[in-house]
């Protein structure tokens, strides 16, 4: 890929990733966030966290299926970091607009409410991944260790989806779509690995 194309695509990715935040800020300034602005901010940031996590998890299977798309790897870190960014905004919205900065209320929530426990767990799992996302950190850890550590993103994404299911009312099926997509992406990994092993085996045999 040409350098100028890459720069253009990266710029577009930045714009797309900042889009939801831009709309929220515009809505907050013009007071057009809808009837329940607090819930709108919380749901928008939460949904985009999961969406970006899922997009970042789609990179590897896509590259394996379509080798011509291997340049997608250049976008994975960006997507992952934006997922963490929206996850952090999501949590800060809870801290400020739901718990009102009341530490006791927050601790009680984490202890009593499993959907909050699960959300916090997901965010805590993403934290070391975001912290070790720099090229320097990858070099320092070594590729193998870094890969092993970053497999935690699978657990974090599952935490995120469970957090979503536990937050909606029992019987409401809104999280189904994201759950199915994540399921396919996670399952594709062992399936693709098995397929690859078989192909290599055939060549060897």
């Amino acid at each position, binding site marked *: 890929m040409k350098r100028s194309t890459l720069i253009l695509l990266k710029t577009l990715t930045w714009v797309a990733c900042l889009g939801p935040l831009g709309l929220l800020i515009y809505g907050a300034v013009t007071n057009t966030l809808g009837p329940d*602005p*607090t819930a709108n901010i919380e749901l928008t940031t939460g949904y985009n966290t999961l969406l970006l996590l899922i997009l970042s998890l789609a990179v590897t299977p896509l590259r394996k299926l379509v080798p011509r798309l291997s340049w997608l790897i250049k976008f994975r870190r960006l997507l992952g970091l934006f997922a963490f960014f929206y996850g952090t905004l999501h949590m800060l919205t809870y801290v400020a*607009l739901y718990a009102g900065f009341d530490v006791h209320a927050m601790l009680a929530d984490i202890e009593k409410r499993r959907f909050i426990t699960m959300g916090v767990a997901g965010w805590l799992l993403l934290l070391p991944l975001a912290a070790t996302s720099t090229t320097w950190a990858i070099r320092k850890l070594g590729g193998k260790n870094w890969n092993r550590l970053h497999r935690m993103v699978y657990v974090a994404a599952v935490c995120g989806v469970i957090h979503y299911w536990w937050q909606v009312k*029992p019987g*409401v099926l*809104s999280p189904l779509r994201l759950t199915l997509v994540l399921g396919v992406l996670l399952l594709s990994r062992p399936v693709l690995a098995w397929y690859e092993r078989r192909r290599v085996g055939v060549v060897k045999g």
Partner: protein
Amino acid sequence: MLIRKPSDIPSSAISSKDRYLNRRRFLRGAAGTIAATGAAALGAERLGEVFNPRITALAGTKLETVKSPLSTTGEDLTSLEDITHYNNFYEFGVGKGDPARNASGLPTRPWTVRVDGKVKNPKTFDIDTLLKLRPLEDRIYRHRCVEAWSMVIPWVGYSLSEFIKQCEPLSTAKYVQFLSYYDKSVEKWTSESTIFWPYSEGLRMDEAMHPLALLTFGLYGEVLPNQDGAPVRIVVPWKYGFKSAKSIVAVRFLDKEPPTTWNEQAPNEYGFYSNVNPNVDHPRWSQKTDRRIGVPFYAQRRTTLMFNGYGEQVASLYSGMDLKKNF
């Protein structure tokens, strides 16, 4: 020939009355669809009538009302725009904006309310009879959803007790059940959740007879928009919003607690009573505060009051009851 005696039928094989009623209402819906298909076959000029029932246009018609001393005062009203575009009416979709988009097909005329169960005689009331039964009052109430948001709504209606008197319940009637309209051909969004339809709600008789409990026909002085439960709904201001059933087609008087939709869906989250109570948390969030709809995000949070601020009027209904247990 084998003729089964009643004693041969195991009680487990007998449909509960609810399921029976549900099936009957389902069949009635199906009959309506067949009738519509037949009408369409009669001629293209009548198609418009079939697909665009004249009646949906009633929403917004002015109603003649009188003031009520039971109105809540001193709080800003939630805008009509927000009251009509932020709804929980899962038959028309689970998103807050879905009912406003999807409820236009609700056929609010002709409309009847069937009254049966522990009554002197089962009766059917026409909606136009109900509208004229008593003078319609403007009643401003706080509305507190179990999801921890709240509004202030100027409803139009009269005390449910006035209607119940016309139903002539027997002394054995201890509870009253409300069943909402259900027709899968109109409410195409019911599979967005696993709820068992039709929507069912209920009150204890003394709760239903309390003057604050409102049989509701309108808001902001006009006929109810479909998404807010047209043409007739219940409003119980001291309880969480889901107790206030919308688009009522049947009222049943019973000697025991009726099955209610959200209580059946998740009994640990939604009690039969579901009085607004800041001291009893929902398993997934605190009920101590709520978010007022239609104000900027930094000004939404407010303290939730016991019985939604109607304690002075209704607390006596629950004297001696453990409200933590009977949440």
